[in-house]
């Protein structure tokens, strides 16, 4: 579909997930030293980053943000772009909003990877249930987690809200198996990586997005983008390093 005003893939410059996935697929841990240092200067992230940049530089992806595409579904239907990375919550939208004559022409697929399907990892999104160490109701909270993790409860959630089940057992359900667009997400769920579990992650992710946008819009060369990103993220993690040092100093 590539041609004038037609692109192979739409990677909005205001989303952090695609460049982060590119880094993860290349084997980058994103942060090192127990989440106290940025790892964006490492060769792994650099590989993913260069590959990602080439999608823009070769004209496969438009250098624009999601704000500039007024209606994602219309543009997809018009053929402005052919691929888009998103989650299962979009399935219903695509079914409802794409014209009827296009309904047989679209489908979903798990992400490919740089070294074969096994490296095609992705993010699982909001994937963690947390039980506070200081909680006064640990037993009750654990009971709730057990309940939410039951395959039949997860299936019920899927039927009610479209949220995908996390348990392999639940994926044996015939209704889930029958939908090929769902199956792609089921397969992807076997290859997911969690983002670093540090409170600064959200801020770091936005920084990645901002710096990648600079490179995409050619406001700065890729080298300086990655070193700026590392410097900024290292500065954000200063408190975390201090907390680490304090804990190791035995004050706690």
């Amino acid at each position, binding site marked *: 579909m590539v041609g004038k005003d037609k692109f192979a893939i739409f990677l909005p*410059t*205001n989303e952090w997930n695609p460049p982060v996935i590119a880094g993860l697929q290349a084997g980058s841990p994103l942060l090192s030293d127990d989440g106290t240092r940025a790892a964006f200067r490492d060769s792994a992230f650099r590989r993913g980053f260069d590959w990602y940049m080439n999608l823009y530089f070769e004209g496969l992806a438009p250098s*624009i*943000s999601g*704000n*500039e595409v*007024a209606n994602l579904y219309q543009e997809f239907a018009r053929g402005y772009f052919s691929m888009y990375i998103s989650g299962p919550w979009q399935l219903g939208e695509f079914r409802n909003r794409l014209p009827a004559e296009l309904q047989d022409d679209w489908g979903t697929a798990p992400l490919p990877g740089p070294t074969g399907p096994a490296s095609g990892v992705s993010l699982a999104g909001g994937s963690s249930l947390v039980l506070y160490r200081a909680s006064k109701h640990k037993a009750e909270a654990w009971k709730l987690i057990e309940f939410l993790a039951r395959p039949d409860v997860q299936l019920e959630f899927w039927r009610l809200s479209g949220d995908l089940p996390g348990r392999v057992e639940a994926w044996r359900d015939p209704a889930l198996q029958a939908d090929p667009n769902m199956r792609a997400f089921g397969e992807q769920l076997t290859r997911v990586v969690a983002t670093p579990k540090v*409170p*600064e992650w*959200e*801020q770091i992710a936005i920084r990645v997005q*901002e710096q990648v*946008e*600079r490179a995409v*819009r050619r*406001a700065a060369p890729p080298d300086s983008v990655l070193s700026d990103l590392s410097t900024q993220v290292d500065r954000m993690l200063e*408190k975390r390093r*201090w*907390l680490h040092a304090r804990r190791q100093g035995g004050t706690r």
Partner: protein
Amino acid sequence: MSNATSERRQASAAWGFLAPALVLIGVFFFVPVLAGFVMSFTDFDIYAIGSPDTIRFMGFENYRQVVTDPEFWRALRNTLYFVVVGGPLSVIASLSAALLVNAKVARFKGLFRTIYFLPVVTTMVAVAIVFRYLLHPKYGLVNRCARVLHIGPIDWLGNPHWSMPAIVLLAVWKNFGYNMLIFIAGLQSIPDDLYEAAQLDGAGARAQFVHVTLPSLGPTFLFVGIMTMIGQFQIFAEPYVMTQGGPLRSTVSVVMLMYEQGFRWWRMGYATAIAFVLFVIMLIATLIQMRLQGEGRKS
């Protein structure tokens, strides 16, 4: 009853009536401002919310970081753009609208006043959605019109060079109605005999405007000028809903930076330092403006 005791009773009654307002201002203004000031010397952040023993006293470190942060200077530059370009444009638009609506030959004055005031009371988010469609690079009405004049297509919100002008225009359109009402009130308070006297002396429409209307609007100008400037310094909603500060952080304002640092990343210490730096800048700008306009009125 002696004079002194009645005065004392009056005074205590006055304090009684004032107390609710004073308590409210104290609790919801002075205490938070003081707390914010203290906080700006600490590294109060997301860790501190969980365990207060991780708060460190930083001295002027936050302030040092603010003034050495390129992000802050970019935000300040964008904010000054709003003040220097958006402010005067907004005042000119409001004054022109007020003159038009107030003109003797104008008809349906109430209708036009309402129409011009409508953007002020319209929800910002609804306005933003409509403007995003108007400014859309491919299907927007603005670029359709520009194409007729062989201009463009301009990617209004996606090009870092055009994003600021686009948002300034939106902000002016959204807010000029409010100042227009104040100008109308100012125009209506100018006595007609001044114009009659000027006419007898042979002043034309232009001379009347320059020598009667403008000087008589002096106090209104001072009020509108300062309020507009303060409003532009605090600009937040327009860029926030239109571009979220992008593209390439070209539309981030100081208040938006403060919001991001404080309420998105919970770096409260840093965010309060930004707030106090902005306060000092606004205070200085307001004093300069009062001095300039005050002198202008005396001469």
